[in-house]
């Protein structure tokens, strides 16, 4: 492969800039009721991002009640003591703020982004939602109907259908086997009492609140202590669901009359806290996390013209999350594209990466780090993520060093340990007859290459997780913790996969 002299010449100057990006000053006090605060003053723009995460999320949905955490979470903004949903909306819109509540697989989130002058009102909105939501019966009925409608509407999106079927195939009835919004069957059965029970499980001791923006930390502390500190419920925890075992290799077809097959191939991956995480990030960058420089993109898009996009990702989740390769290709190419994905997984598993690929991945990941800290919203998201996963207070300072420490052997070991080409689950959404004609779903297709003896798949790894990403092409380090209430215009910034 031809090196660019331009690129090489400039790589030498990388360190100083990355260092200059620096880590934001952070304070991490704990409130008396157990809420962990993460506070940072950022004065570049007169705004404040407030984001509270309560651990649990859809992971704690009781069996048969999938979608409960999300329904409960969404209703937190639809009525608090003395305020109707409509009154809350007026308060939010009159400030021009954004305010949102909901759930991911791992947490319930209440967040607001406000102008700095509205800081206290923002914290107050968040605190009231956690402390004293009223769950009015008519709001409950409306939210439930709306969820059922959205679930039906999502049937018109082949990629969503594929993601849903893949999650189910991977995790089954165990936690994370269903998207956060649940399924038609489960949501139909939800009652207001279920919502009250879920809310009763939320506890300050399981909560972290990140506050980042143009306010002094002393004031952040004072306001948070006064408003969030007043939350002291008698929490009634929900039962943990039994984890699933790792599924066997198989292929599912979801029959749909579409022109393009939506394909997801993968397996259960790792938790965000896995000690191999940095090796996995580098490995995944080489495979399909590195945008146009990745192996999958080169073969399937650039050389084959088979797909508009293809990417691979490991979910950043508390418990082992999904590893998945996602692509869409015209129906007649489905088997070919699937075969290439399997070949590439096998190759990486058997041979690891090359010296040049390793160097390129490390250059990208270290050089890109300043872009993860270039706005108040991004800093808030990263700080919350560090706290939630316990990545260490020195995570930002040590990021580049940890990426640079990854060796070829590390990548090879990560590929052996975390890719299992003989145990892949595949979902294909498309016209069944056409897909079956290509052999998709037959033993020959899904059986995968012969098992590699040196890399036995874990017999029964705890199967739970959730990539909260609605984008099937989530990068390896999916921004698992985006601020709940990013401003309308600051949220959808296009990024390359692997950003």
């Amino acid at each position, binding site marked *: 492969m031809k090196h*660019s002299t331009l*690129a*090489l010449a*400039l790589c030498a100057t*990388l360190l*100083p*800039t990355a260092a*200059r*990006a620096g880590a934001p000053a952070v304070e991490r006090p704990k409130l008396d009721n157990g809420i962990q605060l993460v506070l940072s003053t950022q004065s*570049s723009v007169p705004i404040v991002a407030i984001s509270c995460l309560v651990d649990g999320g859809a992971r704690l949905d009781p069996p048969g009640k999938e979608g409960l955490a999300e329904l409960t979470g969404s209703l937190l903004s639809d009525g608090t003591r003395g305020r109707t949903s*409509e009154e809350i*909306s007026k308060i939010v*819109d009159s*400030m*021009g703020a954004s305010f949102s509540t909901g759930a991911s697989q791992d947490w319930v989130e209440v967040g607001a982004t406000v*102008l700095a002058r509205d800081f206290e009102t923002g914290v107050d909105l968040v605190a009231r939602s956690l402390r004293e939501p009223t769950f009015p019966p008519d709001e409950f009925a409306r939210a439930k109907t*709306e969820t059922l409608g959205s679930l039906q*509407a999502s049937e*018109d999106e082949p990629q969503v259908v594929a993601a849903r079927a893949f999650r189910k195939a991977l995790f089954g009835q165990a936690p994370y086997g269903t998207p956060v919004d649940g399924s038609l069957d489960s949501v139909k059965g939800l009652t207001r009492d279920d919502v009250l029970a879920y809310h009763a499980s939320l506890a300050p001791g399981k909560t972290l609140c990140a506050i980042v923006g143009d306010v002094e930390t002393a004031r952040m502390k004072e306001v948070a202590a006064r408003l969030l500190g007043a939350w002291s419920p008698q929490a009634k925890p929900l039962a943990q669901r039994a984890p699933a075992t*790792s599924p*066997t*290799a*198989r292929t599912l077809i979801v029959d749909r009359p*579409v*022109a*393009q097959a939506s394909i997801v191939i993968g397996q259960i991956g790792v938790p965000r806290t896995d000690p191999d995480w940095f090796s996995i990030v580098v490995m995944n960058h080489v495979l399909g996390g*590195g*945008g*146009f420089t990745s192996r999958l993109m*080169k073969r399937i898009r650039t050389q084959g*013209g088979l797909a*508009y*996009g293809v990417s691979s990702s490991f979910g950043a989740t508390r418990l082992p999350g999904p590893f998945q390769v996602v692509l869409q290709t*015209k129906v007649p190419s489905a088997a070919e594209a699937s075969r290439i994905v399997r070949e590439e997984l096998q190759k990486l598993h058997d041979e690891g990466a090359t010296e040049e690929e390793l160097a390129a991945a490390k*250059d*990208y*990941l*270290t*050089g*890109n780090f*300043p*872009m993860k800290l*270039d*706005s108040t919203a991004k800093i808030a998201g990263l700080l919350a993520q560090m706290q939630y996963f316990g990545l260490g207070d020195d995570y930002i300072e040590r990021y580049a060093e940890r990426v640079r420490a990854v060796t070829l052997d590390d990548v090879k070991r990560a590929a052996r340990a975390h890719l299992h080409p*003989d*145990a892949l689950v595949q979902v294909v959404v498309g016209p*069944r007859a056409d897909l079956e004609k290509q052999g998709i*779903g037959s033993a020959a297709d*899904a059986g*995968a290459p012969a098992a590699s003896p040196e890399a036995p798949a874990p*017999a029964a790894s705890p199967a739970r997780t959730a990539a909260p990403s609605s*984008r099937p*092409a989530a990068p390896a380090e999916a921004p698992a913790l985006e601020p709940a209430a990013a*401003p309308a*215009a*600051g949220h959808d*910034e*296009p*990024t390359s996969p692997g*950003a």
Partner: protein
Amino acid sequence: MPSFRTPVAKSLAALALLLALPAAARAAKPYSEQVVERTLDNGLEILLLEDHKAPVTVVQVWYRVGSRNETPGVTGLSHMLEHMMFKGTKAHGPEEYSKIISRNGGNENAFTSDDMTTYFATLASDRAAVEIELEADRMRGIQLTKENFEPERQVVMEERRMRIDDNPIAFLLETLNAATFLEHPYRQPTIGWAKDIEGWTLEDLQRHYDLYYRPNNAVVVVVGDFDAKAMGDLVAGKFGGIPRGEDPPKVRATEPAPRGAKRIEVEKPAKLPFVAIQWHAPNLHHPDSPALEMLAGVLSNGKSSRLYRDLVHRDRLALEADASYDRTSIDDKTFSMGGQPQPGVPIEKLEGALLAQVEAIRKAPPTREELDRVRAQMESAFTFAQDSMFYRGMLLGTYEMAGGWRQIDEYLPSLAKVTPEDVQRVARQWLTPANRTTGVLVPLPIDPSAPVERVPSGPIH
């Protein structure tokens, strides 16, 4: 927004996003005091905006070419060219551009819309020169070869299947645009009609490239942590030697006056119907523009807006309902509304409810309180947008394409002058039946077969 080289989706959501980019803040300095503007002898415009919040720089190159500049039979050429811009130049091999940017820690991408094609990269500031050099190189240097062209044509067909053909709502909106505009090329899909994609030749592409990829048809926008004088010199140094080209041909199409309400239906396998309504409406150069912007806000901005409050929340007719106004299009475009009904709600009922909302404003002006709330939202949105260097660049580029970045500073003051009666007046003036085109997605049944599971006989773990 696009995650790969891609046309900006013509969805209501995407329109709303653009509209969420307002301007001029109460607290912040006006853009006219922050932006350094230069024009080179070859016609290249340069807009430089220092923003020192992080050691990062965003570079965007805007070409004044999109599906607006295309003709029937070869629609989609601008978007295809966007793809081919990553396929190598005389100096750099195919895909090398992306490799170099990645090696330097940057994120790169591009998008195409009706009005423009934009290339961009975000890098650590000490790497910005890499992107500027590569952009200058590919302004005139790309190599269009058969070998690279054919696979990329297939890629674009896949993109079309994904974005349009297998997306019932996008499919409806594509047809609706074609029905709304009789003559103006806004009737054409940015990605191109499927048959046109099959028929493009290398010569078509080369001609398009030679016509439009000239310094006198481009704007370089740079936002970030740099010194404007030094950055301007750098851009001038890299681009200055590229010769000026002929001025590209003007788009001469003028949309004829509407002749009466139009209605189309699109049949497609889908779970739920959808309705979208478009009225021809003037862009930001018309004095009614601020009132149209406020009208869209009253209808659709936030959960206190009329469409959410009444149709989604109170009456439970719609899963979503939206209004948006194409303020920053180069030529006059549309004011639109759309919505998806709750399951079981007849589409005619939602359509009627959307039109009733228009009728209500035609009959009685909105309240002062509503307008104040919308203005507060617009002002805050401007401040929030400052958090993103990329969006600051988008704001500059979008306005520059539409007729001048200095108009950014006029945005909030112009909204401040809008009265409730103005909003009522523009609703009466523009949202008339004769000016309206309605599109309805009529769902055909989907084969409701459940997933079929195949357990292979291979090794089991």
